[in-house]
């Protein structure tokens, strides 16, 4: 795996983790408040 590919997957997965946290906060407010 080249450095460019590794950077692509790292950024993709960091973005996914951030999006997941955001979705979790939104979902919790939707169903628990």
């Amino acid at each position, binding site marked *: 795996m080249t450095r460019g*590919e*590794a950077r692509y997957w790292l950024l993709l997965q960091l973005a996914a*983790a951030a999006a*997941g946290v955001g*979705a979790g906060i939104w979902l*919790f407010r939707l169903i*628990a408040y």
Partner: protein
Amino acid sequence: MPRSRLGGSFLIFFSLAGVACGITLVFLGMRAVMEIGGACAEGATPYVIARPCPKGVPAAVLGGVWGGLACLGVYVAATAARQVPSLLPFAWPALFLSLGWNFLEFGVRPPGGGGLAWAWILCGVLFVGMGGIPLWIGAGGAARRFRGGGTASASRARDPGVRWPVHVAAEPSAAAFSGAPESAGALFDEPGAELVERLERLASLHRAGALDDAEYRAAKARILGAGGAP
């Protein structure tokens, strides 16, 4: 971008987002329960429920646990099948450090007031240790794999404690070396590929039996003869 890589990207993105979403739901659900004293009950029971759960919290926590686990399974399979570096070593620490934070925060400032809640502080220390120690041990290896510049097997050689699945099927087919000079040329002339990486790929084909000894020697001589120049 190849279509298969695009599909893999979507799968990895949404499965990892699901894992993070699940951990977040558990984290927030735990806080909601701790706000009312740390315990609650819900559902049909012969006993009188002294403290009902906050609205929607049981669903959020249960959904977070099981949905997160399901997404984790998909994420692990998707990254392993594509030999993509994975954030999996951070999942356990993320869960336990976040829940440990809740224990410590509410242990220091209990919702009812009145000093420290030592039981929660003890749980917090335990959880922080359970999350922090694996993070301390495993974070370096996980971060190294995201630096790139080598193959999965090269990463594994640098970090023998971490198992990394190598799928021979993902390597170039034997046809690239026998009777298909264009394909072989494409392999050797791949832009940006490094000499060591090419030799490793060749050796893995040889080990898998796709190349016999003579073919392996010929291909190796060709790579070395080219001096690794792209």
